[in-house]
């Protein structure tokens, strides 16, 4: 194994923030201020709210660009800069400062987040034009961007957690944006509850890191990875993996992602494709040294990634809802990123590379699907699409570019990143490599299905559908994202400022070049062959005969894929129903048992007193008898005591 610059992640020593870097906090401050203003200004801001929302994110992007070029001007070892804003709290021996760490890894994320957000905000100005609550939408989007930036810039796991929760909140608010729809409200609750399970993992990991090392600062914890016992390391690693599964919709916490498509399409593009769901991958890569020192946790990451990439791909083949098909695709692609991240320093760089490329083409595909939905009266069922390429040429071209990128056709960006992941997967484990390859084939299959059902074939439109091309404000971001999807693979070029993605990320994540078992040219050829098989098979199933408008019965596997491979059924039977029975039993116990005990005691005492009342007869002679009896008892006691009193 050869190393590029000889640096490992835990060796980064951050410099203090000076000059332009002292403006780092503006990255978060702009969208946060935007969110506060937009949510507090009320109806007055309805006319200009969306413009302000877009300008704040654009300003963050401009600041991020300046910071990027300033970082490029520094030496490779010197690119980590830390800015401590203020002390959050200091209790006992535990001190937490609100600090921002800008190193190559977080810089890449910041550029992706601010750049893609700006494009999606511009798109949303057109998409949400007729929505009466548009200002609030932009406020929530800004809140999301602020929280996500805090997440990737945090220098302490606890501050990362603040951002983590913030994006979860923004996701809840945005999925349920159309509050009047019960399905949207339910979906947002489901997303929040499933994310909560992952958040338990995150908070326990923070507690464990405090117990093991005494601090939750990221560089301190990862730097101490060689000193902690394997038990602590494995525990922290598995808990972080649980957190990542929740946020990134990996198996077993994947059930919320498909329901999250109830939100408006820009939300699906930004949160559930390009940024929030990648936070799990960021967490794993950031905590790399912990996983490298705990092989059990690392293998768990690889297993989760491999299982999810196949799981998501299978689900995607049977979904007729265009957004749900793309969501299943997102689940699968993040599985690829998790797989790469679980392979250690050989894979971190490629996980991030694929993450960025995926951000481009998946946002492109989602915004394109939003454009199609806009044209078809918000219809999502692909069975009533067909032959749209003549009516919506711009969306068709940009969507096709995204399609070619995701299936991995050279020279588009997806080819470079996915091919690298398949390479390193094969080098580490044949099973993972074969799974990644099959996943690529299935990806080609279902994406071709989406293309054929939407853009080609015969018109299967409903009577009231009059599809038209979208306005320039929506088509503009599509074009930009299509260009990025096409040329994004150039990130590997060494001539870029920063030196290309591998040397750029190496000081932050570590990089090792793995030895290939086959000659390097073999991998792309095998991958392209599998992709071609997927495309041709899909064309043979969907491209030749007309698509039926009512879904056919399908095989067992098709029905299983339509039911999300029984993910919801599993959650219901294993967690929900026993939980319901438990709560019902407890309620029964509370009303019969505890209330019964309290009421029974009260009734008993009442009965006792009713009986005791009968002593009050009113007869003087009976009172006299009791007095006599008492006197006799006292005298007998005195006599028996024999004067000992």
């Amino acid at each position, binding site marked *: 194994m050869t190393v590029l610059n000889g640096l490992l992640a835990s060796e980064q020593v951050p410099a203090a923030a000076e000059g332009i870097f002292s403006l780092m906090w503006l990255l978060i401050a702009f969208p946060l201020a935007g969110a506060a203003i937009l949510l507090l200004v009320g109806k007055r801001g309805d006319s200009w709210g969306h413009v302000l929302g877009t300008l704040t994110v654009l300003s963050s992007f401009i600041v991020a660009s300046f910071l990027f070029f300033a970082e490029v001007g520094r030496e490779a070892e010197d690119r980590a800069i830390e800015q401590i804003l203020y002390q959050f709290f200091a209790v006992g021996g535990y001190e937490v400062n609100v600090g921002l760490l800008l190193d190559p890894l977080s810089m890449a994320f910041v550029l992706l987040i601010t750049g893609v957000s700006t494009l999606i905000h511009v798109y949303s100005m057109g998409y949400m034009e007729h929505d009466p609550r548009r200002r609030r939408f932009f406020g929530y989007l800004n809140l999301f961007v602020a929280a996500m930036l805090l997440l990737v810039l945090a220098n302490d796991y606890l501050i990362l957690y603040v951002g983590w929760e913030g994006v979860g909140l923004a996701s809840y608010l945005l999925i349920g944006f159309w509050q009047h729809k019960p399905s949207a409200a339910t979906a947002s609750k489901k997303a929040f509850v499933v994310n909560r399970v992952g958040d338990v993992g995150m908070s326990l990991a923070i507690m464990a890191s405090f117990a093991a090392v005494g601090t939750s600062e990221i560089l301190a914890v990862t730097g101490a990875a060689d000193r902690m016992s394997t038990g602590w390391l494995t525990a922290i690693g598995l808990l972080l993996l649980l957190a990542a599964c929740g946020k990134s919709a990996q198996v077993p916490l994947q059930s919320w992602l498909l329901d999250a498509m109830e939100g408006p399409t820009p939300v699906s593009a930004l949160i559930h494709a390009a940024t929030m769901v990648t936070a799990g991958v960021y967490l794993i890569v950031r905590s790399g040294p912990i996983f490298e020192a705990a092989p059990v946790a690392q293998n768990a990451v690889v297993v989760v990634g491999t299982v999810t990439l196949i799981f998501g791909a299978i689900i995607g083949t049977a979904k007729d809802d265009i957004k749900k098909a793309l969501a299943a695709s997102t689940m699968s692609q993040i599985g690829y990123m998790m797989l790469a991240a679980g392979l250690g320093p050989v894979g971190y760089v490629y996980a991030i590379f694929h993450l960025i490329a995926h951000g481009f083409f998946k946002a492109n595909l989602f915004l394109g699907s939003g454009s199609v939905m806009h044209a078809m009266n918000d219809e999502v069922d692909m069975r009533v699409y067909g032959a749209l390429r003549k009516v919506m040429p711009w969306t068709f071209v940009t969507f096709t570019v995204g399609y070619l990128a995701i299936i991995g056709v050279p020279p588009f960006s997806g080819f470079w990143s996915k091919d690298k992941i398949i390479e390193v997967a094969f080098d580490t484990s044949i099973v993972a490599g074969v799974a990644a390859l099959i996943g690529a084939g299935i990806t080609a299959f279902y994406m071709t299905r989406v293309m054929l059902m939407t853009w080609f074939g015969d018109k299967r439109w409903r009577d009231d559908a009059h599809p038209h091309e979208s306005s320039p404000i929506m088509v503009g971001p599509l074009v930009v994202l299509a260009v990025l999807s096409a040329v994004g693979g150039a990130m590997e070029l060494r001539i870029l400022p920063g030196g290309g993605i591998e040397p750029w990320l190496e000081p932050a994540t570590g990089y090792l070049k793995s030895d290939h078992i086959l000659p390097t040219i073999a991998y792309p050829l095998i991958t392209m062959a599998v992709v071609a098989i997927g495309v041709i098979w899909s064309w043979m199933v969907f491209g030749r005969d007309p698509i039926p408008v009512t879904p056919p019965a399908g095989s067992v596997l098709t029905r299983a894929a339509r039911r999300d491979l029984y993910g919801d059924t599993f959650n219901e039977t294993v967690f929900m129903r026993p939980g319901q029975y438990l709560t019902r039993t407890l309620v029964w116990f509370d009303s019969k048992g505890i209330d019964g005990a309290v009421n029974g005691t009260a009734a008993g005492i009442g009965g006792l007193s009713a009986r005791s009342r009968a002593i009050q007869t*009113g007869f003087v002679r009976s009172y006299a008898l009791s007095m*006599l009896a008492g006197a006799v008892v006292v005298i007998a006691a005195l006599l028996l005591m024999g004067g000992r009193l």
Partner: protein
Amino acid sequence: MNPSNYIVLSAILFSLGAVGVLVRRNALVVFMSVELMLNASNLSFVTFARTSGTLDGQVTAFFVMVVAAAEVVVGLAIIMMIYRSRRSASVDDASLLKL
């Protein structure tokens, strides 16, 4: 001159008085039985004073007699009032203090 005879007599008189209080219905007879109990205790006081050779018991007997007299005054007055309003001297009839 056996003091135990007097003590036994006092005990018998006391028991007779107690039984009378419990058994008889007429308020005046109940009063008479109470007087009988008081006098029985007087007798035992005086007997013990004789056996111990001091005068304490005889002084106490005086006190008891004074208290008995005062009690009779008040009690008879109450019985008279009850008889006037109810036309009955039976203790069983005055049983309104019940639940």
